[in-house]
């Protein structure tokens, strides 16, 4: 209510406050905290953690202010600075090359800023309780701050150049988070894979940027938005641009062919995994599509590409999730499915709804990973086959997980029900049958996958293992529990649809030219039924732990391994690049060096002085060299002097 009042007031404080100033503060605070820790408190765990949390809290406050101002005045404001500027011709005004960086404040950025900073803060509070001394807490907090800085930078970027810059920082922070336990081979391998996939995306984006710059001589999102349809570039050109930009987005947001890093990202410590999957690098790509939406909007084939890849990712993710035995990987695959759904939503024009889905999914996804962290720490296994029966022993975590599952699946009235409903409403409004079917199916299957996780972990009997006493399991307490409770509250309230207009989250973030379709009760009913039916099916299927049918085992394995795509990529890389590298080495030693050796030996000077040089005669050689230089100099001067004397 207060917000609407503020909006109505003609001259409130929000009229005079600059949202970009607070956005700038929000961007710089995590970086300052990082630098303070590196410079001053690198030796103190308590101080470092305190600085990290306090500065992130300040970031959250800045984000809240930005959101409040944007709610009152939903404007697009930018504050730009020059990074590099020079003229590419001698007449000054002719061609100017300029790279700008800056911060922007608009509803889209405000929503993402709030999500990122709040998730980061809560995750840090959780980490205070869960990261032990031997896990390298200071390094961990530094990396969390770097990730927060990178994500806020991505969120507030005003130009493609700045976005690429922060994409790089995001890549680094993800690499460091996944590889946090660097002694483990699988963690570092997953980290390297994430880095390389991200680098592929960054390189695709870089080529896209080169193309866009070449065509428009401009990299600012806002300026470009009006130019795509200006006829400067043909439809094919726009399609190529959108492909290249989408490669950048797909690598970050784990869209189908570039998804292979996402399951491995669960190797990160629980708080880091929660950050990556809820508001971290996995969301960068969706955000990039939303930010560069004018480009896709101008290219119908670009939108179709988004729809196909997004839909495929959504379905494949959920199918793979259904067959995972590893707890974290199962959750990670449901994230992948949700990311696909977000891309699909953007592609069908559900712009506000797609961004709202990012917002509503962030809390349950983070919560699932945090709960998984607690469970895995207590059970010392990640395999769901070795879990079960935890409802009796971890009642608190059980409830939390249940809320998270309900919120992630879209069970009314939890958070993502509202966003899924909005997406489906848009699909109904444009009457796209495949989209309607996909959204419903993904909701249904996604709910089954999530309920399966819950059932396998909490219901049934705890599997007996050697050297493991289920009686010693303890539930989450302290800061870990506090963080989880706040996330759980967010899971309930994040979906609240406010009043009409800009307090309605879907009307808040809009794209000009894309109509908002109001919620349809058919859509709401479909989502609710799909989620509830999915939950029932999941409950029925997995309430009893049963042996998988023997005949289906190969199928299960193929699906659980993600159709072996990961391995295929690795084989392809190893099969193509390493032999090429070895071949190049062979050519170098045999062909090039052989020719060189032939030359150097046939010249003959190679043989004798080799021995001569090997011993201590270097001194004589040096003296000889100097004598030569001196004699040369003297002769030259004398000669030159005589010549000058003659001429002069």
């Amino acid at each position, binding site marked *: 209510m207060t917000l609407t009042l503020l909006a109505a007031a003609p001259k409130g404080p929000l009229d005079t406050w600059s949202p970009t100033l607070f956005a700038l503060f929000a961007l710089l605070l995590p970086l300052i905290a990082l630098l303070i820790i590196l410079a001053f408190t690198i030796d103190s765990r308590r101080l470092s953690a305190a600085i990290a949390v306090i500065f992130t809290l300040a970031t959250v406050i800045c984000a809240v202010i930005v959101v409040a101002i944007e709610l009152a005045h939903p404007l697009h404001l930018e504050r730009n600075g020059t*990074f*590099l*500027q*020079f003229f*590419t*011709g*001698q007449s000054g005004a002719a061609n100017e*090359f300029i790279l700008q960086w800056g911060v922007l404040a608009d509803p889209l950025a405000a929503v993402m800023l709030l999500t990122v900073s709040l998730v980061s803060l809560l995750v840090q509070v959780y980490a205070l309780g869960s990261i032990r001394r031997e896990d390298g807490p200071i390094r961990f907090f530094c990396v969390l701050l770097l990730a927060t800085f990178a994500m806020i930078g991505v969120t507030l970027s005003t130009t493609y*150049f700045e976005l*690429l*810059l*922060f994409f*790089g*920082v995001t890549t*680094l922070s993800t*690499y460091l988070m996944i590889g946090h336990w*660097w*002694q483990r*081979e699988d963690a*570092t*391998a997953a980290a390297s894979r994430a880095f*390389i996939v991200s*680098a592929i995306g960054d*390189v695709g984006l*870089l*080529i896209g*940027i*080169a*193309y866009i*710059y*070449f065509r428009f001589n401009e990299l600012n999102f806002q300026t470009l938005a009006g130019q795509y349809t200006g006829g400067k570039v043909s439809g094919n050109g726009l399609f190529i641009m959108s492909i290249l930009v989408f490669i950048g987005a797909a690598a970050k947001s784990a869209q189908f062919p570039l998804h292979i890093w996402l399951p491995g990202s669960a190797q990160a410590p629980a708080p880091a995994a929660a950050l990556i999957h809820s508001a971290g690098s996995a969301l960068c790509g969706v955000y990039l599509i939303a930010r560069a939406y004018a480009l896709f909007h101008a290219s119908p084939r670009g939108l179709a590409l988004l729809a196909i890849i997004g839909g495929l990712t959504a379905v494949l993710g959920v199918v793979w999730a259904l067959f995972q035995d590893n707890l974290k990987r199962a959750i990670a695959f449901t994230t992948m499915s949700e990311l696909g759904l977000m891309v699909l939503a953007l592609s069908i024009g559900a712009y506000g709804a797609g961004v709202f889905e990012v917002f509503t999914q962030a809390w349950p996804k983070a919560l699932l990973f945090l709960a998984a962290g607690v469970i895995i720490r207590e059970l010392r296994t990640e395999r769901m086959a070795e879990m079960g029966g935890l409802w009796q022993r971890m009642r608190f975590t059980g409830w939390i997980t249940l809320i998270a599952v309900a919120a992630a699946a879209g069970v009314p009235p939890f958070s993502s029900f509202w966003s899924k409903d909005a997406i489906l409403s848009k699909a109904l409004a444009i009457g796209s049958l495949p989209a309607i079917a996909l959204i419903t199916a993904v909701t249904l299957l996604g709910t089954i996958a999530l309920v399966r996780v819950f059932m396998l972990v909490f219901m049934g009997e705890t599997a007996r293992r050697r050297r493991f006493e289920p009686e010693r399991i303890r539930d989450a307490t302290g800061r870990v529990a506090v963080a989880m409770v706040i996330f759980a509250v967010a899971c309930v309230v994040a979906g609240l649809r406010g009043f009409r207009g800009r307090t309605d989250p879907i009307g808040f973030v809009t794209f000009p030219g894309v109509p908002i379709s109001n919620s349809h009760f058919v859509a709401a009913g479909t989502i609710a039924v799909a989620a509830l039916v999915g939950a029932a099916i999941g409950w029925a299927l997995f309430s009893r732990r049963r042996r998988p049918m023997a005949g289906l085992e190969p199928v299960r394995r193929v699906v659980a391994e993600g159709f072996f795509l990961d391995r295929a990529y690795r084989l392809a890389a190893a099969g193509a*690049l*390493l032999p090429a*590298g070895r071949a*190049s*080495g062979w050519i*170098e*030693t045999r062909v*090039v*060096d052989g020719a*060189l*050796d032939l030359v*150097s030996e046939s*010249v003959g000077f*190679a043989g004798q002085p*080799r021995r001569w*040089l*090997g011993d201590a005669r*270097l*001194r004589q*050689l*040096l003296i000889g060299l*100097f004598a030569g230089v001196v004699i040369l100099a003297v002769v*030259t001067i004398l000669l*030159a*002097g005589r*010549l*000058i004397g003659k*001429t*002069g």
Partner: protein
Amino acid sequence: MTLLEAVPTTTAAPAQFPTVLLSAMVWVPAIAAIALLFFPARTDLHRGRIRSFVLATTGVVLGLGVVMWYGFRDQTGTYAYEETRGWLPSIGSSYHLGVDGVSMPLLLLSAFLFVFAVLASTRVREQPKEYFVLLLILETGVNGVFASLDYLLFFLFWQLQAVPMFLLIARFGGPRRLKAAWKFLAVDLAGSALLLLAILILYFKAPVRTFDIVTLHDVTLPAALATMICWLFFIAFAVRLPVLPFHTGFIDAQAQAPAPIGLVLTGLTVKLGGYGIIRVNVGEFQDAWHKIVGAVVVIAVVTVLWAAIAALAQDDLRRLIGYIVMSHMGLVLLGAASAAPVAVNGAVLLMLADGLTAALLVLLAAAIIERANTSSIAAMGGIAGRMGRGAALWVLAALAAIGFPGLAGFIGQLLIVLGAYPSHRIATPLAVLGILLVSGAMIWAVQRILFGALPERHGRIRDLGTLELANGVGLISLIVLLGVLPAILMDSINFSVITLLSRGGG
């Protein structure tokens, strides 16, 4: 002596600095080298004194370099700090020094890197005097190439840096040093012969009997002749760059050279090739350059990709660094070939960035190889557990080599890609693929060197010492500075690149 009287320079001196600045930067090391010959080197005290003296000398040169950079900012003419003295008037050669925005940053880089090279030369046990004398002569040669504006002088300095480099590798290198040194010298001599040939053809065919680069710029030659000279210059410089078939000498030399010499080799002497291409081919033979650019771009892209693929399969850490430098120099060649202002700016910036990065990589690699007692990447692993500070620096160095945002290489690569794309729309994405492969190679190498379980035999590895750490942090600071504030050099670079590109030339 009438000989050494300064001839008044034709262009207005930009700032009120003495015009002997460049001469000082070039000759102070040589004079110090001669003085060093009379130092005793019998005891450890003597050796320490020698090292301090050399450090002071390079420090003086660095100070002059900073003064040069500071005074350069408000230049107006084509060249700054010009010195023209009569030297061999009978054949039309003069002692002509001067820097512009292309050579000034490289000269500054040279001044910095030699200080780091001397700081890193702690392992020279035997014949330290000879070592440092050669190192100082090397500095004279390198600085002289960057500063000279007379083809004959240019060639003499080019030779002056080749000989000490050969001797340093041959005498102080690794187990297979002699073969590597000879190979390096053989390739280099072939290149130098072409360089001399190109200079002599130019000299004899030009209507004016002069070696002066500035004067010869205004001379027009027949197109066919200009193209041929341009090719000769290009091959001579490309051998040093190194481009594809000529790189084995460089890679072997890099694998065998002692760390400080490897630092100079990868950080500076290969940059001489890139500098030569930008100064002579791009600047002086523009029309001819445009004719051969198609072939050059192919060579550049093949070099980038070849080096990147070779880096992926490389097990020897030092050779890996060599290939990564080679890949970057291929990108520099692409930027120079496109002859677009943005790309040439990027090429200069990438040379600076790569010089600093390569220096850092070479020093860190030497530190790890010395401790692990092997240069095979497969035999390392888990070293991060014993070398926390070393691992942090390694990761940063790897990121710098990749061209990570916020570090110097990123801006260089970005400018090359943005600038070269309009004229080479297939070659540029292919070169970008090379950047990607280099990232893969680097990340994979970092994973295998630093992470994983620590082998038993590496249990006693020490972390970086204070001096090594200081060297690394110093280089990283420069890399970050250039990455965050490229504008400190960009204005000067761009001014001269525009001048270079817009005045035409035959």
